[in-house]
């Protein structure tokens, strides 16, 4: 049996050698750069010291996690992460849908395409630049303050970037400015895919523009909406730190520090590698749990699976 099975396999191996040669070296590559770091999770259960061999490390069990959950700052960081993630989910998900619905009503093709080109632009610009633009617009002599002053909404310029309570809002609004156009692409494509006869039939039946949006367009793009929702929920805790790092400053730090920044500040910078790894594991677990739960709900309601 063994020889019988091995021979065809060898044959296949030789026949498809190019296919193997074109994929397996890259798998080895992925193994090193994506899978080996998972092995690094063992650091979270050690009192890791760089330079020592794996066998020489001291094992400490769950001590790092206990220390993490005992740290008050951790809960603050967690609050910031979830707070800004939820805002990002709420805005970064609904606004592009609405934008796509509105943009779809534009009939003039050249105008429509120009709007698309313009609104996609910020997506391609780095967060470094966007953060620079945002702080400029929101500075004391910035355009926002100038407008607010001339409308007499405020009497003196607001130092937006220095106010803790503005920070989440600023991050969310910057995100909206940068990504709304881009995120609407997928919904716009789904809208265009809807059978135009449905709209014609509804128009004949006397349905107005908004009724058609509500009863035809929205249900038509429901699958896309659901998939994007599940994916965004899975990414909830991995919002990254770029925005927070670049827009934050010491004054607003209590509202700007998110999990990854916490890892950076208390894991890498001060050399508490084990502690930093424990935070990373916690982060991954939360996002996997969220993804699985949201996918299960999705499966129950639609009998489909995203993962």
């Amino acid at each position: 049996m063994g020889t019988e099975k091995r021979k065809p396999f060898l044959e296949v191996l030789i026949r498809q050698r190019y296919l193997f040669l074109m994929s397996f070296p890259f798998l080895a590559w992925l193994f090193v750069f994506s899978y080996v770091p998972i092995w690094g999770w063992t650091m979270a259960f050690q009192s890791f010291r760089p330079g020592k061999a794996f066998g020489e490390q001291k094992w400490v069990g769950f001590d790092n996690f206990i220390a993490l959950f005992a740290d008050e700052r951790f809960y603050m960081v967690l609050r910031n992460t979830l707070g800004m993630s939820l805002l990002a989910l709420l805005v970064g998900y609904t606004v592009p849908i609405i934008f796509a619905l509105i943009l779809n009503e534009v009939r003039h093709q050249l105008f429509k395409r120009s709007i698309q080109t313009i609104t996609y632009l910020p997506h391609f610009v780095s967060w470094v630049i966007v953060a620079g633009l945002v702080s400029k617009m929101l500075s004391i002599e910035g355009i926002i303050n100038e407008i607010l002053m001339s409308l007499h909404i405020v009497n003196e310029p607001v130092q937006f970037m220095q106010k803790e309570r503005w920070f989440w809002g600023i991050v969310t609004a910057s995100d909206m400015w940068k990504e709304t156009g881009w995120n609407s692409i997928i919904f716009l494509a789904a809208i265009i895919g809807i059978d135009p006869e449905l709209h014609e039939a509804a128009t004949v039946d006397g349905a107005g523009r908004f009724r058609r949006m509500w009863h035809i367009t929205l249900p038509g793009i429901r699958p896309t909406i659901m998939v994007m929702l599940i994916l965004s929920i899975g990414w909830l805790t991995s919002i990254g730190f770029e925005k927070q790092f670049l827009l934050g400053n010491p004054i607003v730090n209590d509202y700007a520090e998110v999990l990854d920044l916490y890892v950076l500040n208390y894991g890498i910078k001060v050399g508490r590698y084990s502690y930093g790894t424990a935070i990373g594991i916690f982060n991954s677990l939360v996002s996997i749990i969220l993804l699985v739960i949201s996918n299960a709900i999705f499966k129950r309601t639609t009998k489909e699976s995203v993962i």
Partner: protein
Amino acid sequence: MSGAAAGARRRRQGLAFYGFLYLFMILVSAITLYPFLNILAISLNDATDSMRGGIYLWPRVFTLQNYSAIFRFSNLLTAFQNSVLRTVIGTVLGVFAAAMIAFTVSRKDFVARRFVSVVLALTLYFSGGLVPVYMLLRDLHLLNSFWVYIFPGLVNAWNVFVLRSYMDGLPFVLQESAKLDGASDWRIFISVILPLCKPVLATIALFIAVGQWNAWFDTFLYNSGKPGLTTLQYELMKILQNTASQGGQTVRDQREMVGRISPESIRMAITFVAAVPIILVYPFLQKYFVKGLTLGAVKS
């Protein structure tokens, strides 16, 4: 009730709706474009004059001096070189790698097809996290090295899947007839598949290039100890952060003098230089990437 009156009312409503719609879209565009036009205007304005403020869309005292001033900072030239280099090398290698893997997983007859797909897909859902990756790169001696910009992200599963779904849409007959002519799989890939995939390859190239050009965090975390490996976005980050907030967060210790001494107009000129390659390139590729993005999302 006469039909003509109802029709007229409906037309009036439609007109009001479109008026509002177009106005709204113009407003959105203005909000999107204003910051860019504003920094362009400031970067073209005399540096001392800019300090008076009040520059919106047009420079008051036109000058190109701010742009020539950039050349005085030798670290910016190094940074520019490195950014260009990492963008070119990273894009070429990344596109090629993604295309090769995508080709193998698009082949229904490939025995390891599922295995390759799963190994790829898993990387989309988890990552080791900052510290383990940092330790790995340290062990591989990739810290303070140019290759840390290229190697870790070389194989991107998302790009592979976008390419794969495009290749799935190509008729398999083409490959079969090439095979009958005696072409090897490698030949088929090079002379049949790649030429047909040009639009989606352009999309992937754009995505990778933008990611490479815009990256600053890897320089910050892995290469900040070696000034010769600095990148444009990292230098810009230091300059902008420097003036945006005085005093350091724990992670922002190393600051350079460039930011403190350079007036706003010069900073805006640097910002514009860092943004302009993308602003110039992407409108030409728009029709491709919209298609590519939609394909990838539908598939996954």
